[in-house]
């Protein structure tokens, strides 16, 4: 999570108006869902990887690594679509079969095609989301949500939660180290006890922090209502716009040809 966050803040598309990046990722996502050809997903992955690497200067290893991890995960999930496992002889439409002991593994070309479609569709969507996550910091996405008229209360909550995830995480790490330093996790039993204590302490700490937060916000002139957030203005990037339109057009083209 941490390294994705750091690329979001340091990539070359950081200063581009978030609506461009979110618009591109969103349209690719929708196209991947609408157009049912396995080549559309593949094209989307290539486009997103290319734009992330060339325009945003995300190292290819990073983009590829994240994608590969997700691919492994979805491969397991789509395995169930492609191969059916039964205890009796499989139905006649499954021409390819293999039986080991009492278990039958069987599949058919149409099942494989369907699995391929699902995984390419999912990978296309995921690549689009990765592109957005790696090029746009959370705070910019909150601002985008604000522009899209999401309720202010929700945005305030997200703003505070996003910041305090890191504070809570730091606190947890410190407490965990302190417990480990006093052999809190030396045996399985003491480990369970320590973990329970840690959770309790974290909860109390979070509660105390929420009260301090109230004081600190009021000290700077917060009156009940909404957090007023200052937004920075970013530039438009027409290179990204044209390349994005080209990506959309090429996905449509791939779909019509396939």
């Amino acid at each position: 999570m941490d390294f994705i966050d750091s690329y979001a803040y340091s990539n070359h598309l950081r200063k581009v108006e978030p609506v461009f990046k979110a618009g591109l990722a969103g349209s690719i996502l929708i196209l991947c869902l609408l157009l049912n050809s396995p080549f559309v997903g593949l094209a989307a992955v290539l486009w997103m990887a290319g734009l992330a690497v060339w325009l945003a200067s995300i190292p290819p290893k990073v983009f590829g690594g994240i994608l590969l991890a997700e691919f492994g995960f979805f491969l397991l999930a789509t395995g169930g679509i492609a191969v059916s496992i039964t205890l009796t002889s499989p139905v006649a439409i499954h021409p390819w079969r293999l039986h080991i002991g009492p278990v039958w593994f069987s599949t058919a070309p149409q099942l494989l095609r369907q699995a391929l479609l699902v995984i390419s569709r999912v990978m296309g969507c995921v690549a689009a989301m990765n592109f957005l996550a790696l090029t746009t910091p959370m705070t910019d996405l909150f601002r985008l949500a604000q522009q899209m008229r999401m309720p202010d209360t929700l945005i305030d909550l997200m703003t505070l939660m996003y910041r305090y995830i890191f504070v809570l995480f730091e606190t947890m790490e410190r407490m965990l180290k302190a417990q480990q330093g006093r052999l809190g996790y030396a045996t399985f039993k003491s480990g369970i006890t320590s973990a329970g204590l840690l959770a309790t302490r974290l909860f109390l700490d979070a509660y105390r922090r929420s009260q301090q937060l109230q004081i600190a916000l009021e000290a700077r002139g917060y009156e009940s209502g909404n957090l007023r957030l200052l937004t920075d203005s970013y530039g438009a990037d027409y290179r990204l716009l044209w390349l994005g339109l080209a990506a959309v057009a090429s996905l449509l083209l791939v779909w019509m040809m396939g």
Partner: protein
Amino acid sequence: MKPVFEFRDVSFKYPNCEEKFALQDFNVSIPAGEKIAVVGRNGSGKSTFFLHCNGLYRPWSGEVRYRGQPLAYHRAALRQLRQQVGLIFQNPDEQLFNASVFQDIGFGPLNLGLSKEEAKRRVHHAAEACGIAYLLERPTHALSGGEKARVALAGVLAMQPEVLVADEPLNSLDPWAQLAIFDIFQRFYDEGKTILMATHNLSIVRYWATYVIVLEAGRAVFCGTPRELLTNRDVLDSTGLSRVWWKVDLDYPSEQKSRDEQ
């Protein structure tokens, strides 16, 4: 010199601790335009005192005056007071609520009702003054302790206060980060403004402060210049400060030797 704050017979208890007064018959007059060190052990009422300065706590009895006027606790008056009196917390994580440094510093100015352009100008100006302009693009959680402390300070300075009230701001900062904070404080003082700082450090009381307040058990037991405090044997002994500040001198009056040398 006209006082910036006057506390008259202020008493205060915390709702969850009814048996003990956090401040009791607290009387103090704080001169304007000074660097004031506030000294006292943990639980002596320093933080409670500071939170009264900003109108965050309201005395149970007695009154607080700011520039001669009793504090009013309605919304408009509090907004004005909180613009004038900036509060800096011991732990910057308590103050920094936003993952964007830029937005966090801009929070106070926007609450003052300033326009977006003016708020932005204030953010850049405060960031410049605190030497953190290079951090505006970074997320809060990626900053070091010293950087967080300076961002928190910038968030308060962006409101252009007349008084800074800092509750042990140097705790857990390394000496280099402490120097950076002192530099910012000094420029603030040079503009004729007032700083209150809670501290336990003798050097700060002796060489930095121009006025000292000593708290004990919810009362102000001494107000005066550092020279007056350091020559007031009674106060130093009764509060234990003589022992605290000169313990090393008293117990180890000469250079120590390593075990090999002995």
